[in-house]
């Protein structure tokens, strides 16, 4: 199974509130709140750490779930967040930088 890497979309507005992330989409200003698992994915999405490592070190440790099941759910969640342009998902590490004028990754 190939590795999956996650990176935060730097163009969204984001703030942690009471342990959950509040995110406003850059595309259409839709407001989202991320549940605890999605918040962990967001906070760990550095573009360099593979998803299976995030699941192992952060999600399994926190929620006492079986690793393969947690990875399956996390991947589904990550792709959902990518559909809303909150996260980027790639099979290659994703370099993180501030968006430059005109960029629309």
């Amino acid at each position, binding site marked *: 199974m190939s590795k999956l890497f996650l990176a935060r979309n730097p163009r969204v507005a984001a703030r942690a*509130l009471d342990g959950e992330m*509040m995110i406003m989409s*850059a595309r259409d200003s839709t407001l989202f*709140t991320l549940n605890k698992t999605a918040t962990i994915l967001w906070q760990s999405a550095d573009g360099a750490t593979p998803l299976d490592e995030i699941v192992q070190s952060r999600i399994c440790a926190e929620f006492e779930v079986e690793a393969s099941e947690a990875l399956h759910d996390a991947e589904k969640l990550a792709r959902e967040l990518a559909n809303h342009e909150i996260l980027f998902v790639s099979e290659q590490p994703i370099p993180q930088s*501030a968006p430059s004028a005109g*960029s629309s990754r």
Partner: protein
Amino acid sequence: MKSLLEEMTEKALARNIPLSVQLDLTYRCNERCVHCYLDHDDHGEMTTSEIKHLLDEMALAGVFILTLSGGEIFLRKDFFEILEYARWQRQFCVKLKTNAIMIGEREAARIRDIGVESIQISIYSHRPEVHDAITLVPGSLKRSLDAVRFLKSQGLRVILANVLMVHNVDDYRGVRSIASELGVECTLDPTITPMMDGDRSVLSLNIDRSTLHEVFRDPALVGNVDEFCEVSVPADENSLRALPCSASHTTCYVSPYGDVFPCVQFPLPTGNVRKQRFIDIWRYSDRMNDVRSIRLKDLTTCTSCTHVKACTRCPGLAYSEGNMRGPSSQDCEKSFARTGVPSANMLAKKHSAMNLIQIQSLPNVTGAIA
């Protein structure tokens, strides 16, 4: 059903987090609007690095919605540097308030690239002779509307803000028509705010009672007129425990000089970010906590008023009138225009005016003695 933002606001309230802050970057302006409450001279604005430091502190404090306003924000040469920092380094949801006359195609494209939630632009009339007579800048309506088109063509959310006053009372329908043609939103505010130094002379620009009465009966503005104008049911114990507004609870205001206030309309200084951390002012300022402690049941006069539940009473305007726990006469006027029922404050004033009339009988008494 509550919106997600309402839910987040409730959470912020419970945890004493300033969810939304208006930061005025400058009081300097390239218009001279006749109703403006600001002193446009620069008395020592925060520098770029001071503002970036403040944005760092605000992000740590949990501020999510950041409204950048002024004065005219585009007069700051570092405006785009500040905006980029707020968006890209600190991930604020940014709203802009501007007259937009310095926004050309290039600026509109740059705003789009940086990403903002909305841009609110002051438009007072659809007629240049009226709008320009309010801003005192010839050609300003054309320039502002050109900017609206540039911004709209970039796919940005634009809101026309129409302040209603004696000069433009007949023109709000025209402004709404322009908004509709341009495919942008439009707000109407019938409130003129006293000058920040306490000068109340600008209040003479407020529209009169009968005009306000008409405005509040325009279905295009208020929807269901009967519902909008009905007198609210009397307040019970539970509703009297409600907060007067969000000022100092989930919102506050920071001036270009770093002074922190409960709200842009509430000129009670609570601290200065050049001397204290933003979060310390927010949490520990005695004045901020004094404002925070007020519930509807604590209001003098208003607690017993018929309108207390539905009134738009602004604590800042009440403070400007002399007592933050007292009535705001401008809002009394609005409640009266809306329902036809005088407020407790209006009745009390009428009563005291009647007492004054009795004093007028003194000359006769004097005459009798003579």
